[in-house]
């Protein structure tokens, strides 16, 4: 089988790797680059645990081929904190107990950040629709929505 050389940027750093043609971006991030934040919940686009940004668009990394990342700009949950300083969303998720097992959390953080980057003041309904592709088996979603709203309020300086 032919391997494909890919050169891309992940969380601002230039990265090169070799992948198999049918390999997903999720597998390449986790197994080749050691970025295990994005999780595989389903591998079929249903759960959102693998959410990352590709060229600024929120996508399921399990439904992107690694080879498609050539020349792209990828953002994962690992890029959210600045060193030891957590992103407000990360802090509010911890403070509001918006996670239990945590499997869904990296995907939800990436998705919520993408929402707040283009809509800093969403309604609860907008948060729920935006996150409809991120499944959580533990929290019942309410604490997630509240954590997103309190982080949004802090980020707006409210």
């Amino acid at each position: 089988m032919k391997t494909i050389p890919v050169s891309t940027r992940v969380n601002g750093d230039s990265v090169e790797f070799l992948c198999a043609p049918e390999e997903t971006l999720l597998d390449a991030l986790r197994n080749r680059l050691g970025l295990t934040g994005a999780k595989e919940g389903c591998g079929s686009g249903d759960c959102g645990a693998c959410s990352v940004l590709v060229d600024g668009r929120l996508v399921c990394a399990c439904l992107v081929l690694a080879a498609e990342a050539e020349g792209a700009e990828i953002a994962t949950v690992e890029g959210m904190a600045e060193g030891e300083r957590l992103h407000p969303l990360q802090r509010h998720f911890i403070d509001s107990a918006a996670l239990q097992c945590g499997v869904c959390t990296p995907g939800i953080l990436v998705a919520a950040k993408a929402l707040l980057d283009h809509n800093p003041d969403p309604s609860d309904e907008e948060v729920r629709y935006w996150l409809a592709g991120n499944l959580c088996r533990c929290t019942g979603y309410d604490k997630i929505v509240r954590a997103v709203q309190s982080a949004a309020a802090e980020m707006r300086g409210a």
Partner: protein
Amino acid sequence: MQYERPQSTAEAARLLHGATGPARILAGGTDLIVQMNAGVAEPALVVDIKRIAGLRDIVAEDGGFRIGAAVSCAEMGEHAALAAAWPGIVEGANLIGSTQVQGRATMAGNLCNGSPAADSVPGLVAAGATARIVGPEGERDCPVAEIPAGPGKTTLKPGEFVASFFLPGRPARASDAYLRFIPRTEMDIAVASAAVNLVLAEDGSVAEARVALGAVAPTVRLVDAAGAALVGTRLEEDALEALAKACRDACAPIDDKRGTIEFRTKVAGVLARRAALIAYTRAGGRT
């Protein structure tokens, strides 16, 4: 498997033509990569069309719009002029999947995947949209209505693919709408759906009407009798009932756990009525 990323439609056609095993176009991958991950699809060649010049653009053409085959549904929703002219097309495309799926999914993929429940197809059919198809013998234009051939099947010939869609220009008093029924509010497959596209006359009556139904037959159906039931009316109750009846008569649905034949048939008529009223109001008509 071989992965290719051509820069032109001609190069893509050459790659498909020269394929020695099963070949698939890759647009957003929200159907294809699901099938590959599940081992259902095992293509020998995957041709990614997202880097082909022009295929990611929405451009004005002859008073209408040309939408490249690699334009994502999210990009359609963000295009203000397109959403204003064809709100029904855009709402169908924007119902597909989650935010994550929206960022990748395309109408061409939705059409060519061949699901009878594909959410963007009834709107395209009701609009009278045409697809520009590129293949080994060059280019041809084909009404979208003629492309679905049954679950998982299209009338595209070997080596052919969709390069773009064309939505015709429309007069001021015209609009469209799409509705689907699903048991939840998001992330589900249509049990029945309806798209209605109307052009009104100066006096506010319906001058032209096209009605298409999804998920109630092996392919999306253009229901001529349903459109005819609306022409010359202002969507009075008897016109709406004639529309609903024509839709029910056109249904040949499956019976499964998501909806019985009886339920899908009834709901198709109800959705057509509601979509007609929405399209009529959007077009500036008053009942």
